[in-house]
């Protein structure tokens, strides 16, 4: 049976050989990588469903004859409020889902989340670092303080003010994974674009007329003026309002900047007479490579710490952006090296001979072929982004005080030596996630670069 399948596989491969299928097959052969991949899928699942896995609001509750789905309803509107009639007094009573202590209500029937605690809400009966094995207390709906039933135990203990560590870990997964993915997404956008341009054009292949060259420089200056100087009040006002609108204003500025520069560049295509009409080589590769070297000459962690330290307001989004704009150099270098190789290949010569525009050649023909090593770099990059984020939250720099992350949990453990559960569990979570990404990165490298495989 197995042999038959194999024959079939090889036959179909011969007919339609695709690099993707080949790479996936190679990747699947690597046991540790595929195992890590499944762990990652599991982590992603936890991160997405964190709100329903660990929540102090029940998934379903029947109270005074009415049915509620608090966890689902607060997912869409966090401050969802309902009201019920108190049968004893006959008065309407307000019921705001997220601040109600559901454990104290006399619910007729209830389905709790697997972990019935929210990450940032303290449990006042289990304060002062309660160990996972120690006696834990619980106040039942009758108002009696009893030993906690298994359902309401803190399986990974609590911190100084009684927050559940397991719940914090589960919600921390969401933060860590998003930091890794979004910051590397930003880094990949910048890195692939700059690396592709640098590698494709090199120092000699980008030739503009002098007119266009000078006009582009003017465009960059003007774009900077209209994007950032004329709009700096709008930006600072946006940041005063909220991080989100600040970033939006910043994005608008960036679009204005790029728009003006590109517009003037296009105007520069007009044929100019005399001195201005002479052609000039643009050393785009040197410019980008020097930029990479300058950014590399600064210790990255120190750079990120310093930038996030001067931010007026600490927020995770800001942190992602900062990590993203400081870690694109590796990706850019890989893309550049790959493009230097690719541009000499015959099919790109053919594209040139057919008169395709450079943009089309770069992004449609060369890029899909040059992305393989970039994926490897991105996988390792995500691991290091997660490491940086947890390091920063460990130090308490750049991350908001109320955010419960793996790093911040670990740093709580430093203050209290007896609380080993505050060190071990978050540390293990960080370690597993980083290992998973590193293993996937290695697997990808082996799968995508057949030359390395001996």
């Amino acid at each position, binding site marked *: 049976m197995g042999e038959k399948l194999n024959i079939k596989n090889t036959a179909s491969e011969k007919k339609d050989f695709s690099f993707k299928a080949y790479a996936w097959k190679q990747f699947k052969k690597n046991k540790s990588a595929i195992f890590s991949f499944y762990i990652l899928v599991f982590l992603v699942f936890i991160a997405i469903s964190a709100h329903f896995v660990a929540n102090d609001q029940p998934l379903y509750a029947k109270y005074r004859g009415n049915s509620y789905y608090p966890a689902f309803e607060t997912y869409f509107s966090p401050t969802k409020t309902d009201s019920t009639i108190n049968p004893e007094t006959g008065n309407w009573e307000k019921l705001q889902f997220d601040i109600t202590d559901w454990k104290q209500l006399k619910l007729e029937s209830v389905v709790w989340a697997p972990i019935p605690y929210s990450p940032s809400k303290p449990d006042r009966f289990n304060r002062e670092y309660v160990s996972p094995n120690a006696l834990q207390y619980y106040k039942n709906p009758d108002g009696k303080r009893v030993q906690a039933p298994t359902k309401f135990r803190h399986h990974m203990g609590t911190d100084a003010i009684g927050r559940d560590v397991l719940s914090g870990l589960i919600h921390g997964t969401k933060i860590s994974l998003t930091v890794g993915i979004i910051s590397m997404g930003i880094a990949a956008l910048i890195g692939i674009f700059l690396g592709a341009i640098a590698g494709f054009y090199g120092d000699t292949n980008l030739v503009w007329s002098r007119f266009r060259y000078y006009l582009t420089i003017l465009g960059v200056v003007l774009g900077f003026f209209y994007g950032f100087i004329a709009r700096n009040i709008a930006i600072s006002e946006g940041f005063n309002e909220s991080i989100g609108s600040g970033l939006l204003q910043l994005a608008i500025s960036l679009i204005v900047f790029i728009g003006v520069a590109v517009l003037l560049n296009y105007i520069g295509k007009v044929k100019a007479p005399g001195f201005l009409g002479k052609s000039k080589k643009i050393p785009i590769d040197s410019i980008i490579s020097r930029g990479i070297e300058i950014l*590399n*000459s*600064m210790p990255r962690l120190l750079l990120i710490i*310093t930038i996030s330290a001067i931010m007026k307001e600490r927020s995770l989004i800001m942190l992602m952006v900062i990590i993203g704009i400081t870690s694109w150099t590796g990706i850019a270098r890989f893309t550049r090296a790959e493009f230097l190789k690719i541009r000499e290949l015959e099919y790109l010569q053919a594209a040139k001979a057919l008169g395709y525009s450079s943009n089309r050649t770069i992004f449609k023909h060369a890029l899909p072929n040059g992305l393989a090593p970039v994926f490897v770099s991105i996988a390792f990059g995500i691991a290091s982004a997660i490491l940086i984020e947890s*390091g920063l939250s460990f130090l308490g720099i750049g991350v908001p005080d109320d955010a419960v992350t793996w790093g911040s949990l670990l740093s709580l453990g430093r203050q209290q030596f007896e609380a080993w559960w505050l*060190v071990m569990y978050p540390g293990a979570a960080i*370690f597993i996630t980083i290992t998973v990404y590193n293993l996937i990165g290695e697997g990808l490298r082996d799968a995508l670069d057949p030359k390395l495989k001996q």
Partner: protein
Amino acid sequence: MAFVISTNAPGDPVERLSKSASKEGAANEQSAATKKVKQDIRKRLGLDLPIFYVSLAAYADCDTLHKIDDKAQQENLLKLTRKYGNWQAVSRYYHALNTLSEEHNILDIEKIYMDNSAISYKTIGEGDTARIDTIINATYSKNEINDAKNNSSFDVLSLLESYNEPVIESKIASLEKIYREYKFLKPLADRFTVVKASFIDLKQNATPWKTYIPKLIFHWENQYANWLFGSKKRGTKGVLRGDFGTSYIDNQPVSDKIWQKFKVSFIFIFFSIILAYLISIPIGIYAAYKKDSAFDRGSSILLFIFYSMPSFFIGTLLLYTFANPDMLVWFPESGWQDPSIYNEDWGLFKSMAHHWPYMILPLFTYTYSSFAFLSRIMRVGMVDVMGQDFIRTARAKGLNEKKVVLKHALRNSLLPIITVFANIFPVAIGGSVIIEVIFTLPGMGLETFNAILNYDYPMIVAIFTISGFLTVIGYLIADILYAVVDPRISYS
């Protein structure tokens, strides 16, 4: 780069320094003395100068804005200028407001009180008890006068920091009301009419189109030049000659403070890198030589685990295991020396003997990750070389294995491990922040952490510049090592 960070830092350094200089006075209190102190500090820090040689600004902008003392007012004026596009009118408005606000300081409450009471004094006044009568018959009590003055002064101060038209108009209306109600504020009211007129003038003569035209301004004397090269006028030497300014925390020169810290950090980074190379090269060689053996597999799994362990996790675990009264107390928990025993005059060996228990755990934390990284690279490089023809030739010649591996293979496989020297160095510097915080070592990393918590920007900038410099030195060393290992490479 460091300079850009320092100029964009939030908060006003002048406010901080003036507060640390004289620990009294509320933030809003603008007495003449504190103003003078602030101006002196601004002069000393050179903040009354423009930032860079060239600045790109809107045509409407005023090019002497940096001379304004207060940073918040400076920003507000910029916003006003950007809104109305007419800095001459804005400056008239600002000056009118300023004279109005100064008028508050010279307002004599006692005199107003007497003046207003004098009326009743005259109507009732007969004989010696007149003074007592006046107090009873005063039109306004002192408190009332004070309140009115404070209200008006508050409104004026907030006018100095608001740029929103409705806000300004409502403030002006409320000021008008105050002056109408309390006639004794006549001198203020006179100044106020000027303010109002200038604001109306500002609104009418707005030229917003001017904010969309760029202009370049050149400044020969600027903060950047002073920061880099120093200035004779202020007696600073500039970063290029090792002067990083003064710390905001205690007003000490940063360069003096940082030198001690630098030594501690450097010892750790230096030893850890040397150790990492010393351990990883033999391990890599052996693993590659016995490729696919139990040692190779075991060590690569272990190294991979090491490589993925965050340093703050390892550090905390080490502390938890080896410096914990409940577990083992082999090493001291934190710090660098025992202040009760340590003597500054001790010789090198004696102080080393004193320091070493403090060094073991941090040194391990510093070393392990780079050592795991290096071993893996060494192994890959060695495996690569061992498969090449010249090794087979060496073996065919009948050379013994030791010579083949250590002489022929080793030298050729060193190149990749040297390449990464340039990468390990900055990682070690950045990692020092976390490690030194965990073990409370008095090095640059801990200093960075404290500086960030205290917003001590000159210190941050100094550390940043120095570590950038060290990184470049790391690149240089790597380049030199290339040429040493591989004679084919030359830099001539």
